[in-house]
């Protein structure tokens, strides 16, 4: 029903609507730096017209109302970002892990195992050429000690890196569960307020941000439901089904790359967690390589050395410590006899002071292909081992840069759609300010008209 001054009503609806619009602009500007925030826009709609009778039945507009406040969001970009983010997470974790492994070896300076191996064989060569020289013996023993120290240290450094990565894996699992729980809780709240006809934009932003964070850690897919909630799956196994969340199983099966819990096997294909596990398996193989190096040094050098007669007249003396079964790189050291006396080192098989034949055979091991090391020399085997790690490290470094670019591009597109532009908001603010002023002016004019009318009656 329309009063005598319908315009006063219309103008006041306008004032209310414009105020809401300016409030939203305020909200947008306040959240210009909020992570995951999507700018909100106010949609306006005319109010239902009221009718009056003239020549016929006519309708007159009765003002404006806010029909909805919506967030600017493109969900296909969110999906693309999840994939890019999983790639980036895996690339980052793996390339960081590989570069940590690489650093353990301290190459290509003089502080690595490569130099120690060379000096070890040099030591034998020097001793072979001058078996009577105490300095040559000392030199050899120092070189051998350096070699065992470096192999042992590298091994324990690898264990340390392994521990760090294991810790990061635990943190990642914790994060997956925490994020799943948060998503489920937000789903619940979103569902509740959607049911009451509200548009919970900010809650949805928070949830989408949590989903995006989750996609960094594991490969996920999402399904949106009519009630506003979103389900999250890790390789088809639900992490979040609407308002419920499922803790992720934490047993990793390296053979087929799955997380195993009870009867379910969930393939882990991407994300930080998968990168960490891949780095972990590289550590396992790097440690196995060091074990092979240490054990073959033991058996090859000892089997020759034990045939010799040392300066004390003893034979069957080991050069490196050894046990059956062999203990690998972890406790690789010189035999206690060698450690306690330089004279325990044998240089020949005759026991003559000038016999360097055995030392010469040991020096020749430098270029001998060892079948247990894949028909490679000791140095060649070691070079291949660190070489494959450094090649992978360099490959994943490059790949991660590419992933960063891809993720950045999608993020830019998302920002382009959802990000707040202060210039836009200021322009809108001015627009609504002018509109508000105009509506206020209408009120003033109508007020004057009403006053004129009242004065007319007096």
């Amino acid at each position: 029903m329309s009063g005598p001054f319908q315009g006063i009503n219309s103008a006041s609806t306008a004032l209310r609507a414009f105020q809401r619009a300016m409030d939203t602009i305020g909200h947008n500007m306040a959240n210009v730096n909020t992570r995951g925030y999507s700018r909100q826009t106010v949609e306006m709609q005319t109010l239902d017209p009221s009718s009056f009778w003239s020549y016929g039945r006519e309708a007159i507009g009765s003002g404006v109302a806010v029909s909805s406040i919506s967030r600017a969001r493109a969900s296909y970009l969110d999906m693309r970002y999840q994939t890019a983010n999983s790639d980036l997470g895996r690339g980052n974790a793996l390339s960081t892990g590989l570069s940590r492994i690489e650093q353990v070896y301290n190459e290509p300076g003089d502080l690595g195992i490569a130099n120690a191996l060379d000096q070890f064989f040099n030591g034998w060569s020097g001793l072979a050429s001058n078996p009577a020289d105490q300095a040559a013996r000392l030199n050899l023993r120092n070189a051998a000690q350096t070699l065992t120290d470096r192999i042992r240290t590298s091994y324990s450094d690898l264990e340390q890196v392994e521990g760090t990565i294991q810790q990061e894996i635990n943190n990642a699992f914790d994060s997956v569960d925490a994020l799943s729980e948060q998503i489920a809780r937000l789903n619940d709240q979103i569902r509740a307020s959607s049911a009451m006809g509200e548009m919970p934009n900010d809650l949805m932003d928070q949830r989408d941000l949590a989903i995006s964070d989750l996609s960094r850690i594991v490969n996920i897919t999402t399904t949106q439901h009519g009630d506003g909630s979103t389900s999250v799956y890790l390789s088809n196994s639900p992490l979040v089904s609407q308002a419920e969340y499922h803790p992720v199983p934490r047993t990793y099966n390296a053979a087929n790359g799955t997380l195993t819990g009870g009867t379910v096997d969930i393939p882990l294909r991407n994300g930080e967690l998968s990168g960490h596990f891949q780095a972990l398996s590289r550590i396992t193989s790097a440690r196995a390589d060091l074990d092979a190096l240490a054990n073959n040094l033991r058996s090859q050098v000892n089997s020759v050395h034990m045939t010799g007669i040392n300066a004390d007249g003893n034979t069957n003396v080991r050069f490196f410590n050894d046990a059956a079964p062999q203990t690998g790189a972890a406790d690789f050291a010189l035999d206690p006899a060698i450690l306690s006396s330089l004279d325990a080192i044998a240089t020949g098989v005759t026991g003559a002071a000038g016999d360097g034949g055995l030392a010469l055979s040991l020096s020749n091991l430098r270029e001998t292909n060892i079948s247990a090391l894949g028909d490679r020399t000791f140095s060649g085997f070691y070079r291949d081992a660190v070489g494959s790690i450094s090649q992978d490290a360099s490959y994943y470094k490059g790949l991660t840069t590419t992933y960063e670019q891809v993720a950045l591009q999608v993020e830019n597109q998302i920002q382009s759609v959802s990000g707040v532009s202060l210039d836009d908001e200021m322009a809108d603010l001015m627009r609504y300010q002018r509109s508000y002023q105009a509506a206020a002016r209408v009120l003033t004019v109508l007020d004057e008209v009403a006053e004129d009318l009242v004065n007319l009656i007096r």
Partner: protein
Amino acid sequence: MRVSTNQVYANRQRLANSRLAEYVEAQNQVASGKRINELSDDAPGALQLLRTKSLSRAVTQYDANLKTGKDYLQNTESALTDIDKLMDRAYTLALAGANESQDSESRSAMALEVRSLQEQFVRLANQRGSSGQYVFAGQEHDAAPYQAVAGVLNFTGDQNPILIEISHGNVLRVNSDSHATFQEAFGALEELRVNLESGAQGALSGVSIPRLQDANKDINALRAAAGTGINTVNRQEDFNERRLEDYAKDISDIEDVDLADAISRLQQAEVAYQAALQVSAKSFQLSLLDYM
């Protein structure tokens, strides 16, 4: 495309940051002079680097071995030179002793001199190298190998070779198998001494002189062999030196930055970084707020 405020800031920040990273990287290369600080900086190059360094280290050791061998050979040669001189003196004495003009007094003086030559001979045959080893003892070189007992030179060493590794799989013998020659030469001296003492003029010219000549020849042959050994060592040292230079060049080619190149890249990076900063400073100033 629509651009949000955060995008502007984030992009400028990223731009300036990556320019800064390039700048710092260029700076590091110029400062350290090294192109490869970690293997993954250039994985194939780094492997080549490890291999070449390993080869170069081995040659360094072979070089050290050569020095040991040279020491052995030089000690051998100098002892043999002295023995040669001593034998020459003995030969001169034999010639003089065989002369009819000598009387028995002067011959017994000569016999005394020969005795002292024999003592010198034993001392020289027990020559030691710089590590204290007896160079004419074979592998039993930790004890003096020669003792003169009742006019006979006893040998307690062995005939085994002293070998030094001069390159992979190649060895050089640095001692000479000298005991037969030494024993014969000493025997000749002893005979000379006895003949001088007894004044056996005929035996001096008929037996001692030719025997001394033969012994001299053999000693000279040993000396020549030691000299040849020293030459071999010298040649190998030259060869190793060239190889080490080649390796050093290879290593430097792989590992070191080309300084001129690195400096010009540093300058480029600096200009790029300045440009990024200026763009940022300018674009941050632009805002609708300034025009309201």
